[in-house]
């Protein structure tokens, strides 16, 4: 898998003149394909997942949970002073969310629904369809992830590009990168050839943390899988806990995507997009690098 041009190494053999731009091959074809397949999968998984959540918009902890059982999160609709309103209740705190959560408009009419039609798939209420699409894309997502995992290990991609080097987690270096990020100063020149340590940690956290957690908590919702691997129930503290963790982990993934897209835009959207489509990433050579 590695015989082509490996990622993160410069391809153009020509010597770069001072202060000019060179292109390096940043992302391998496997990385690019799996990235965009992930975009597709996660979009459908999120929207069909919200469709499924809408069928029972409460979250509990423990082995069981329904209706009157204590819920730590409820998205609902009610009436106050004769007017309908939507709310999100977390613990004992209720936040009005009329128009978006709990109560939103469907073709001009107020309708009680946890997430609005523009966030769910299908847009109209259809639990059966939402489930079918959720499980189809769950399969694609898992297979895609396994291919990427195999590629990442065998090609050396993980070791070369994602493994955190000792010097990178030295407090001084680490702090430097945090400060640079906070000031929106991104690596340039030779430094831009490699992922920085915050980037590495974010990717590792998602790929080795959030995504496996997503899959395992999702599987724990299956009465069939629970019979095959009852240990999952002990690991997450019950099916309803797993459902809550599935929701929370999905929310964290949404946060990651928002930050990820923001970083892509702030650090050069065209260059980043090009590198994830064609693989080519432009680096502006500083005079000191030449």
């Amino acid at each position, binding site marked *: 898998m590695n015989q082509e041009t490996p990622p993160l190494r410069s391809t153009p053999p020509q010597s770069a003149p001072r202060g000019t731009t060179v292109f390096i091959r940043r992302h391998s074809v496997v990385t690019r394909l799996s990235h965009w397949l992930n975009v597709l999968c996660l979009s459908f998984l999120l929207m069909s997942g919200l469709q499924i959540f809408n069928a029972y918009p409460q979250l509990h902890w423990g082995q069981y949970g*329904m209706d009157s059982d204590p819920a730590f999160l409820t998205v609902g609709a009610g009436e106050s002073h004769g007017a309908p309103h939507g709310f999100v209740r977390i613990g004992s705190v209720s936040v009005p969310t009329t128009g978006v959560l709990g109560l939103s408009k469907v073709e001009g009419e107020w309708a009680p629904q946890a997430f609005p039609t523009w966030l769910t798939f299908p847009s109209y209420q259809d*639990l059966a369809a939402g*489930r079918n699409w959720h499980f189809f894309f*769950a399969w694609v997502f898992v297979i895609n992830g396994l291919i990427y995992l195999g590629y990442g290990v065998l090609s050396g991609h993980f070791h070369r590009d994602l493994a955190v080097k000792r010097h990178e987690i030295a407090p001084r270096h680490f702090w430097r990168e945090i400060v640079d990020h906070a000031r929106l100063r991104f690596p340039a020149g030779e430094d831009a050839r490699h992922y920085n340590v915050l980037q590495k940690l974010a990717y590792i956290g998602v790929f080795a943390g959030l995504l496996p957690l997503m899959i395992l908590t999702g599987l724990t919702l299956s009465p*069939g899988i629970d019979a*095959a691997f009852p240990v999952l*129930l002990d690991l997450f503290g019950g*099916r*309803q806990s797993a459902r809550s963790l599935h929701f929370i982990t999905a929310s964290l993934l949404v946060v990651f995507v928002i930050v990820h897209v923001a970083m892509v*835009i702030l650090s050069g959207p065209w260059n980043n997009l090009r590198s994830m489509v064609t693989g080519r990433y432009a680096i502006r050579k500083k005079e000191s690098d030449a």
Partner: protein
Amino acid sequence: MTGLTRRRFLIGSTLGVSALALSGCDRLEQNPEVGGVIRSAEKLTMRAQRLLLGRDALAREFAETDISPAFRVNGTSAPDSEAYAQLAEGNFAHWRLKIDGLVDRPLELSLADLKKLPARTQITRHDCVEGWSAIAKWTGVPLGSLLAASGLKPTARFAVFHCADELEKTLDGSGQYYESIDLIDAFHPQTILAYRMNDQDLSVGHGAPLRLRVERQLGYKQAKYIMRIAIVDSFAALWGGNGGFWEDRGYEWYAGI
């Protein structure tokens, strides 16, 4: 400035594409060919689960203290037919469970007959397709023992449960509740025909006099108000042809997830 307009363009085009995608999405779901591909994942799920589960992996059984205080009555809360009302009034003394179809010896059993047979009691979790769970204690006759007693013919493949409740009022009767499972689930040790719940006779809300417990699948498979069990080689000729009331309305036949 160019950075700003570029950003605006990016945001604008992203929103535009998303809006376009959104309106196209629903059409995607309604396209039968796309739907067919999407629904094929059910077969993969069933194969994978059967491989992992084997025939006899048991669903977790809980302790008395784990029984949940509330258990929603879902679907039908009381079948509204005259015939069912009469049976309920007579405490189901005149109710008979029929087992027929591809069997050597069709059976007809009263509730008293069933209660005399060896029973199994299990405290298990009920998972509704909507997302909630409740835990209850169930007592009933293992379905496998009844099927063995009736003698299945070699062509037998599925057990179909015909129920007394009509969940949707239709002119052709297709709103009648029914469900089906294959023989692997039918002979699973935890698959029972329950007549007791939490140490009391099954209430009308929960499916009196008899309901199915098939513990490795979701709530809609746990048919209530069972009147007849037909052993068949195919359910293609029944109502919508998908093997159950909810299956005819788009839900998976294999409800292991």
